[in-house]
């Protein structure tokens, strides 16, 4: 599958690395060239050398998304550090490019829940932390 990961912070780079190791075609878009280094370190060797694709660009810019291959993506992961950016580009992937599997990281639990109701798959790390903390503290 062709996997496009937008935003290669801690979460995005790990997901991208795992996907590449599992044999998928992986393209990463991030505005910070530093995140490329994170991918290299995470992978233990050069990202491109291992078959990965990397594009430097702003997530909101259509041209950057196209350059990173959004039009042929089977899976689109919006994992920048901005909830709002993730929600916008995930909808762009879904509605404009018809990407089959779209997942957006949204820190704000209420908006994550509302957008999920609207048919957009959202992952809310905050909600996961809340549940785990509750379980750890109160059983």
């Amino acid at each position, binding site marked *: 599958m062709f996997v496009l990961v937008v935003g290669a912070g801690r979460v995005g780079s790990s997901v991208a690395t795992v996907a590449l190791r599992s044999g998928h075609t992986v393209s990463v878009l991030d505005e910070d060239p530093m995140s490329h280094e994170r991918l290299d370190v995470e992978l233990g060797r050069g990202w491109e050398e291992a078959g990965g694709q990397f594009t430097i660009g702003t997530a*909101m*810019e*259509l041209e950057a998304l196209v350059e990173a291959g959004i039009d042929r993506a089977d899976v689109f992961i919006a994992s920048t550090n*901005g*909830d*709002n*950016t993730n*929600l*916008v580009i995930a*909808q*762009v992937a879904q*509605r*404009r490019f018809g990407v089959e599997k779209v997942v957006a990281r949204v820190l*704000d639990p*209420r*908006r994550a829940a*509302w957008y999920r109701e*609207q048919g957009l798959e959202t992952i809310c790390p905050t909600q996961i932390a809340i549940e785990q903390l509750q379980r750890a503290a109160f059983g």
Partner: protein
Amino acid sequence: MAGLYVIVAGAGKVGWNLARELLEKGHEVTVIEQDRRRYLTVEQELEHAVQYGDATELWVLERAGIQRADLVVAVTGDDEDNLLICQVAKEKYLCERIIARANNPRNLDHFKLLGIQPVVSATDLILRLIEHEVPRYGLVHLLDLPEERLEIIELVVSEDAPAAGRSVSDVRLPEGALIISVLRDGAGFVPTRETVIAAGDEVLVVLDPGLEQDITAWFVPNGGRPD
């Protein structure tokens, strides 16, 4: 339009001045600003009409009373914020009227995709004004209705124009284009088939987008530039 309740997201120069004008006209306004220092500055003047918070968070919008807002105006410096504020205002809180600001005209596509309109882009407006002042190809865009696929352009007929000296029926414009008005000697009129186009006339043409070049060929063949 008396007595509207307006929520303005973003207390930058646009948001602050807008709130000021709306208050002066007797409307009820709540401005939401997420930068603490900016909020404190604006609060000195607007007092209770400004609230501190991130307008993309639902509870902040609810605290501002979005359920009863007649109009939500999103004019922060971040397009993704403006997009989402308008999207939840419209789709979650069923606010009937929204106005969004696009800081980067390249993001206009995103606003359109998510059904957010009207969108105001200062950059885009200025670009259009520049095009109006310095017309390319000798034509000025007077009206663009992209949804309806319709444009109205204005051209000044040049001396060497193929159309000069011909009657309207002999000016064979492509299908989808029509001369709707001729301005001559300071007065405008709707031409008939027999009207003879003269050099120096200003003609208004309604057309389907994309036909500009065929039309300039008839009226301003050298692109309207001095030789």
